């Protein structure tokens, strides 16, 4: 059974207003740019977006932000898009800032069926406010909840038609974690191959996590984002 879909809007058919959506990438590197563009063309609103950044100003998730489709952003570094701060100051978006390691681990925990975990990161800071604190073997930890979502939009380098994925250099980042932590996982890739063409030793995301595959129509180049 092939999971490959050619039309982006068909791939995004499961996305509804009010959904929580995981979006891969570290800035634009490893971000599912074609799927994000598809989302900007879709009539949905009140989205909660979980992503390290909310794109850059007017690029990637930055477009969705400027369309006022994002109700809440959960991420680690919003400074890279000035528009996020401007909207926050005006009360137009809710933000939840998490340390980057906590964001990553909460996704890992969510995908692994855990409710949460204790971490030393953030203890004694403003980001620990309202979180349970617990001493374990003489060290203070705070409790962080796992993150699970309705949909994950991710980017990989290659997929076979079953949905096995391999990644490319630092475009891997949050993508393999997000692939595990959503009810529906949609991936865009540079290249789609037949099962058997990927070396089992190199597969990072096994196919059981992946629901839908599309061919990437936008790629990040030295000159910026271009249509393929």
């Amino acid at each position, binding site marked *: 059974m092939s999971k490959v879909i050619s039309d982006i809007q068909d791939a995004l058919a499961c996305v509804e207003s009010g959904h929580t959506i995981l979006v891969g990438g570290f800035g634009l590197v490893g971000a599912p740019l074609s799927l994000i563009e598809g989302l900007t063309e879709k009539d949905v609103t009140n989205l909660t977006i979980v992503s*390290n950044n909310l794109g850059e100003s007017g690029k990637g998730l930055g477009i969705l932000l400027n369309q006022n489709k994002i109700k809440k952003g959960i991420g*680690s570094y919003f400074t890279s898009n000035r528009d996020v*701060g401007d909207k926050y100051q005006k009360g137009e978006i809710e933000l939840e800032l*998490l*340390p*980057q390691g906590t964001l990553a681990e909460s996704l890992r925990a969510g995908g692994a069926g855990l409710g949460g975990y204790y971490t030393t990161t953030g203890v004694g*800071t403003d980001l620990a406010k309202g979180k349970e604190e617990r001493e374990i073997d003489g060290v203070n930890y705070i409790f962080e909840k796992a993150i699970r979502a309705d949909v994950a939009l991710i980017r990989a380098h290659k997929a076979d038609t079953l949905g096995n994925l391999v990644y490319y250099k*630092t475009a*891997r*980042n949050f993508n393999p974690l997000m692939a595990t932590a959503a009810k529906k996982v949609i991936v865009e890739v540079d290249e789609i191959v037949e099962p058997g063409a990927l070396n089992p030793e190199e597969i990072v995301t096994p196919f059981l996590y992946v629901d839908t595959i599309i061919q990437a129509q936008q790629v990040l180049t030295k000159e910026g984002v271009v249509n393929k």
Partner: protein
Amino acid sequence: MTTWSKTDMQHLIAKRVAAELEGPCVVNLGIGIPTLVAEYMDAEDIYMHTENGLLGVTDVEEADIDPNLVNAGKLPVGEAIGSSFFNSSDSFAMIRGGHVDVAILGALQVDQTGVIANWAVPGKNIMGVGGAMDLLVGAKKVFVTMSHTSKDGSSKLLKECTYPITSTRSVDMIFTELAVFEVVNKQLKLVELMPGITIEEVQAKTEADFIH
């Protein structure tokens, strides 16, 4: 009174902190001045880790730039012999789990016990913690690089931070264009004056108490 261009000052600090590193070690470089430290590291057994998923960062020639190969500051980098890629959770397991020897971070403020603030300015659009809190709890040593004073000339080494702190942990060393400090028993100790700088100038530009 000594003055530098911003770039000269940043390179001066980066060069000095690079001299402090001894291999073999794994070093994580933050955004800003820390990124420049890579230009001054020549020991073969100093390996650089970047939070976005690469151990074995090197610099890269213009012709070899790959847009999908970047550091924490999203600037293009190269991959060293023996490098590896991994996901963000593994990257922060390395950091939190105490497997990174030195983290070099920027800071907005440092207090006189060595506690830093570097992720938020209340009322401003600076809302980016990134990996800073993880590095502070996990790196074996933390070095801070920053200009000694803000644009308005006020000291960034304060009695108490006025911005939200990044961790209750004190950093180990602080490098500015004026001086190098070690944090010993929650107290700042001036251990070196930068070339041409007098102790009087450091005292005049430092609000925090320090010993020397």
